[in-house]
């Protein structure tokens, strides 16, 4: 939390830019409004209904996983030549969604984009839950998760077997687990002052006890804040290269191989852009209902939604450039397998998927050029859903379409997901929603301390340095 923060200036409001916080808030009303949601108000009906539904869907996933552990991966649609099916598609999709949280909390922090202050908390939570959903797939994708321990991690065993550090798959394990840990630390550090606030102001004793234990005795001392700010800045500086590295390493899983459609240098940048693209779409899908259901339109304003739409437009164009370069390099590289694959994407058995992908990732988001669309919550919500579907299709195209036509026609095959594939995929959506709802019910969804920095009163008016 930098103290050199740019507060929303009056000139900006006059120029037709939406404010970051609606006027009329004081330090006390910010604390009261955000903490009332979790400690004073009862559990809303929509919350209970949503939770029951999401928890039910999550349990379907758990049953499917139980059956998977019992029977093995034969219950999935994967086979040779398509050995990587839904598990990898979903893994890459979820990890990508997880990127927006750290982008908002770290990169926008370093760039002093103070509008991030009201959306970073729940975007970070979204990152954690998305990475949890993603991490599930590498653990279960062999159907034998107890073996994954020594396949994935360097664990000293009497067998004397170690992972192979020249493989991108092992790099991925380190990248994803580091990303999860650093995101969790970042999120927790940001929460501590707010937990202290809840400890001091929650109405019930048991609430004060629980939040008090989590707050660890935080008392807002100036010396503590100096170190806190230093730690926060360092974490932001560390998380920035990290967030760019995670999807880069994920793309290495493909790009380091020799499979046509995977073996390309455009993968790292366009994976990262696609990750941020889908992540912001998920932020929109969460922010739009949260701000109206909890009455937080004065804190998550149209400014946040519009800026996110602009970011989606920009990253979407980078993704479009990535598709164009893939096709161009396949032609220019003069490799007949690469060129065959490009034609196969456009006109092969999965052609509808590819055309749907182009429509939902490239064509539809162009409506964001219009300010009217960027400031309509309905349009934003629908287009964000379209983008998420498009990004899922992109990973499906990359994984399945590249694999189903092997080099020799006798090895060609087809991939159809089974109901267990679907149950686990849909189930992770339930798991994500369950965790998100629990987070909204128990922790402050907007950073109380950082919101106060946005108020004009937070500024120290005069600074007189006359040390005797």
């Amino acid at each position: 939390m930098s103290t050199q923060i740019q507060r929303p200036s009056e000139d900006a409001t006059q120029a037709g830019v939406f404010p970051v916080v609606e006027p009329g808030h004081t330090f006390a009303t910010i604390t009261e409004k955000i903490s009332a949601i979790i400690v004073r108000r009862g559990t809303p009906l929509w919350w209970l209904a949503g939770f029951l539904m999401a928890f039910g869907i999550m349990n379907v996933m758990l049953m499917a996983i139980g059956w998977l552990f019992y029977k093995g991966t034969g219950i999935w649609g994967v086979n040779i030549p398509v050995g990587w099916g839904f598990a990898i598609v979903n893994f890459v999709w979820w990890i990508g969604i997880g990127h927006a949280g750290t982008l908002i909390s770290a990169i926008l922090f370093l760039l002093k984009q103070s509008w991030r202050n009201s959306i970073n908390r729940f975007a970070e939570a979204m990152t954690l839950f998305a990475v949890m959903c993603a991490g599930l797939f590498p653990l279960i994708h062999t159907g034998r998760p107890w073996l994954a321990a020594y396949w994935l991690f360097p664990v000293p065993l009497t067998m004397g077997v170690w992972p192979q550090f020249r493989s991108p798959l092992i790099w991925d394990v380190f990248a994803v687990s580091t990303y999860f840990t650093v995101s969790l630390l970042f999120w927790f550090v940001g929460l501590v002052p707010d937990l202290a606030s809840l400890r001091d102001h929650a109405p019930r004793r048991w609430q004060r006890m629980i939040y008090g234990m989590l707050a660890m005795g935080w008392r807002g001392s100036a010396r503590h804040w100096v170190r806190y700010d230093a730690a926060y800045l360092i974490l932001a500086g560390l998380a920035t290269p990290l967030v760019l590295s995670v999807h880069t390493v994920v793309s290495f899983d493909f790009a380091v191989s020799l499979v046509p459609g995977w073996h390309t240098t455009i993968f790292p940048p366009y994976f990262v852009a696609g990750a941020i693209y889908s992540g912001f779409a998920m932020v929109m899908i969460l922010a739009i209902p949260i701000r109206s259901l909890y009455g937080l339109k004065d804190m998550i304003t149209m400014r946040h939604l519009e800026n996110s739409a602009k970011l989606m437009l920009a990253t979407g164009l980078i993704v479009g450039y990535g598709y164009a370069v893939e096709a161009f390099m396949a032609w220019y590289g003069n490799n007949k397998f690469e060129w065959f694959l490009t034609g196969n994407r456009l006109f092969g058995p999965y052609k509808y998927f590819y055309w749907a992908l182009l429509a939902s990732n490239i064509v539809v988001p162009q409506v964001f050029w219009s300010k009217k669309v960027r400031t309509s919550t309905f349009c934003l919500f629908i287009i964000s859903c379209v983008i998420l579907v498009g990004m899922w299709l992109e990973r499906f195209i990359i994984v399945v379409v590249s694999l189903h036509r092997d080099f020799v026609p006798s090895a060609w095959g087809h991939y159809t997901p089974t109901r267990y594939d679907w149950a686990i995929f849909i189930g992770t959506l339930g798991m994500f929603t369950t965790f998100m709802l629990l987070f909204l019910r128990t922790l402050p969804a907007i950073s109380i301390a950082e919101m106060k920095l946005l108020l004009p009163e937070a500024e120290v008016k005069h600074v007189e340095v006359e040390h005797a």
Partner: protein
Amino acid sequence: MKHPSVFGYLAEFETPTELVEAAEKVYAEGYRKIDTYSPFPIEAASEAIGFHHSRLPLIVLIGGLTGLASAFAMQYWVSVIDYPINVGGRPFNSWPSFIIVCFELTVLFSAISAVIGMFALNGLPMPYHPVFNVQRFIDASKDGFFLVIEATDPKFDGEATGSFLKTLSPAGVWEVPY
């Protein structure tokens, strides 16, 4: 004159500006064992009480270098010494392939040292602190801005310090018991 039964004197101010002005006056008066408490970071307040630097970046640097060294040592030991396997004719010590794990563990160790270092230097977790004995202090996490002069300060003089604080036009002054 020391008051062993008293932690110090606590004054409350209504705005960050008043807090910083008061802290500057207290510092100018010669008090050094002082601290301010606020619901959000105020850079001017920490400057006013004469606290600028933190050793945290050094701790993070050491943590990061430890991560880097252990990542390379682990990969070298596994791939060259304990389990050398010929993969695609590449050398056992294929250091370019080790860069990513080195990077990840550097970031991981740095981040963990930053968080643990920050809490350790702050002396947290600390379940008890005397300032919480003043009922009004709960607002330090909401909209109250507090200044404390601790009894261990050589210039601290019980009542005199209390009445000095009252001259700074605070919203209230309290004796902080242990």
